[in-house]
């Protein structure tokens, strides 16, 4: 690829992007590093190979670079599906790098030597006032994005409490009961659990703040001889006589 700076740069970027994406530990950073490899370089290299003997305007080249990269992604998964191990990060990185390097190589062979690499036919220049306006616009967009992703309070949203139950796993016989508060304010609860006949009910009192979860594990006093239904009820302190939530499950001697 001697004499074709753009193609050499595309290959270097593809390899660097693939390696960094696979070794960097943080998803968002990986995403930023992966973007050119995923959405630009394969299409660019293909367009360079396809139009090696001629010239296309820069804006067409840019659109083809992104568009053909999308086509490579849509078709690439099909290819990977039939490789050993299927669709995996390493295969994706390798496939994209192979597409970039192979297409760049083809472009270098087909392209007349010493031809200038494509470059933008226009160059924007900003004066200070325009730079301020640009910065203001960009800042507004960033604030808009942050605002959209931050959860906000909603006092008029109707709260709720969720409750679940499951038998304990392992050698101990009993249940795990979870209570999660989706209420708008702190609430006090009483938990009542009834194991099989002959065992006294067990109880717990606790308070939960909004968004808080309380998980209790309760064991039976004696092993059940057969499958036995465990029933649990949750009472709110404000309504002590009304079972607010009810759940049940079955435990067996082996469960």
């Amino acid at each position, binding site marked *: 690829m001697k004499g074709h700076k753009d193609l050499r740069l595309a290959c270097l970027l593809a390899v660097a992007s693939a390696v960094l994406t696979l070794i960097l530990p943080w998803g968002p950073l*990986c*995403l930023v590093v992966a973007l050119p490899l995923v959405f630009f370089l394969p299409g660019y290299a293909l367009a360079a190979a396809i139009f090696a003997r001629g010239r296309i305007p820069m804006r067409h080249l840019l659109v083809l670079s992104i568009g053909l990269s999308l086509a490579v992604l849509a078709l690439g998964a099909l290819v990977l599906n039939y490789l050993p191990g299927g669709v995996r990060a390493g295969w994706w990185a390798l496939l994209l790098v192979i597409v970039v390097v192979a297409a760049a190589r083809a472009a270098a062979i087909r392209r007349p030597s010493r031809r200038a690499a494509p470059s933008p036919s226009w160059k924007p220049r900003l004066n200070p006032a325009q730079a301020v306006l640009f910065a203001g616009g*960009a800042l507004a967009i960033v604030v808009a994005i942050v605002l959209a992703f931050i959860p906000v309070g909603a006092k008029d949203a109707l709260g709720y409490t969720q409750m679940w139950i499951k038998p304990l796993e392992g050698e101990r016989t009993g249940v795990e009961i979870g209570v999660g508060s989706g209420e708008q304010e702190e609430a006090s609860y009483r938990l009542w659990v009834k194991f099989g006949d002959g065992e006294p009910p067990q109880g717990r009192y606790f308070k939960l703040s909004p968004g808080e979860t309380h998980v209790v594990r309760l064991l039976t006093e004696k092993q059940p001889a057969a499958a036995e239904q465990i029933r649990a009820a949750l009472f709110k302190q404000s309504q002590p006589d009304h079972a607010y939530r009810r759940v049940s499950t079955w435990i067996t001697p082996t469960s």
Partner: protein
Amino acid sequence: MRSDAGGNPTAATATVKGMEAGTARRSALAKKRVASRPRKRLKVGHLAPILLATGLGLLVCSLANTLSRAALEPTPLLFWAGILLLAVPIFHRLTAEDASAPERLALVCLLGLSLYCVKVFRDAPTFTFSDELVHAFNANQISAHHHLFRENPILDVTPSFPGLEGAASALMKMTGVSSFVAGVVLIGVARLVLIASLFLLFHRVSGSARVAGLGAAIYTGNFNFLYWGAQFSYESLALPLLLLTMMALAEREAAPKQALRAWAAPVLLAIAAIVVTHHLTSYATAVTLAALSLAYWYVHRTWQRRNPWPFAVFGALLALAWLIAVASSTVGYLSPVINNAVNAVVHTIVGEDAPRGLFESSSPTIPPTPLGAKAFSFLAVALLAAGLPFGLRELWRRFRRQPFAILFGIAAVAFFGTLALRLTPPAWETGNRLSEFLFIGLAFVLGCACVWALSRRLAGAATRPLIAAAIAVVLVGGSISGWPWDSLLAQPMQISTDGRTVSSPPLALAEWAQHEVPEGRFAAATADAGLLLVPGGKTAFAGTSPDVEDVLDEEKLVGWELPLLRRNGIRYVAVDRREVASDTLRGYYFAKRGEELQLRPKSVVSKFNPLPGVSRVYTNGLITVFELGPQR
């Protein structure tokens, strides 16, 4: 219509030059010429304030959504003010004569991406469109199991077209981001390709960057552009690829003989990608290319060289091969939709069925669209219709020797035919889908009409603002027509209280299933089932195939229902008392104080209590989950 600052691409930006230029000497001379050519500077004087307006418009839209998520019921006018603030300065600048082609391209790209941001702001930080949840589930399945074509319990045809999810899996696998982040980025890039390809296509066909810019801007007024077409769904990737195909074909038609083969390569690659991505778009591609071939024959009376018929045949054969070899379930999926649409149209015409009222909601609890909004959308359609004759006249005068222009003219007229389909409920969806494709032609025709109006000798100082305002009406009216009025803004799905984040009851169910249920299939109402797919990560059935809808909705269990659950391996039944749980648009959110919450009778839940061996494993008051354990 005179050439503007963008110039005629045929003359100014000759597509492929010197295909056979071989010798080093000639190349060196060419390089010297390029280097000595004065560089055009992109005029950023207008872009800077426009970007500021766009940013502020997005900020206002985001604020409107935030207030709505806070259940403060902001006036929708705030949202529309944001849309207008971001769009109108762009529309106005596109009407100018002195804007260059790169500036116009930058403006339409800014417009397309900004409107996409509006959709993302409504949904962040999760998907909330029912199709998005289906496709996100497929993407998660590919990511988790490393293979395509896995089962989807809600829409079983979707795994047969894995282009979208396969592409998303590249980002998910390589970077570890969620299907939401991968999907948002992927569709954002696809939107960029869509709007830029549309601009380049219109520019090539018309030879005018002004027509191209205005045409692309008008396209944003199609009913589905703002929301439905921006979702993480297979058509959202396939449509941009179709436009890329059309752009490449238009370039091929104008290219020198030596470059014909070169332009064929991107066309073939894009067609193949469309076929593996979306059924309807692949068939639309074959039909479009066939129509284009006929138009080419009509104009040039030849099937040789530039006539794109081989691409039409390639597209049709590839789509057929995919249908037979991989996606045979598509027939069962699409044929009832089309049959119902045809039958409904026939029944409505002969008077057996009453026509559907426009803006009529499916449930009495859904608030009606305000009169002003309805008027706006009718005004938008009236403006489209009013511009059509002028655009067609320009098309006939200037471009009747252009096959693409003929195709656009036919599509523009056909668009108004699809509006009639909206008058029958079963045909509504068919008409809605078709309009997205046909609007491409209408946008070109109206772009011609706008430039004709601007170039008339009598055009005064008010013409430009009037045209910008008319396009704004088309954008707002089209968006109102394409999306329910009460669902334009975000609703509370995750709220912050006491420093913690609390999820809505259906989302809390999905999160419980994700963390506490290691395996087992669910039956649930459609909205709950969507969330159980993503983020729940569970296989959840909804609707009538299998008929879990009746199992959930009836007040008593009948004989066939438990065997049906058993046959389909369903272990958990999530019973939701909210009527809105069967609404895939409104069923995901918190109920609000003062809102009338329609509840099903208690017996839809209690009917499961007496079943032998059943466990009542989860409840949040509105939704209760029963485990039909091995004892059943």
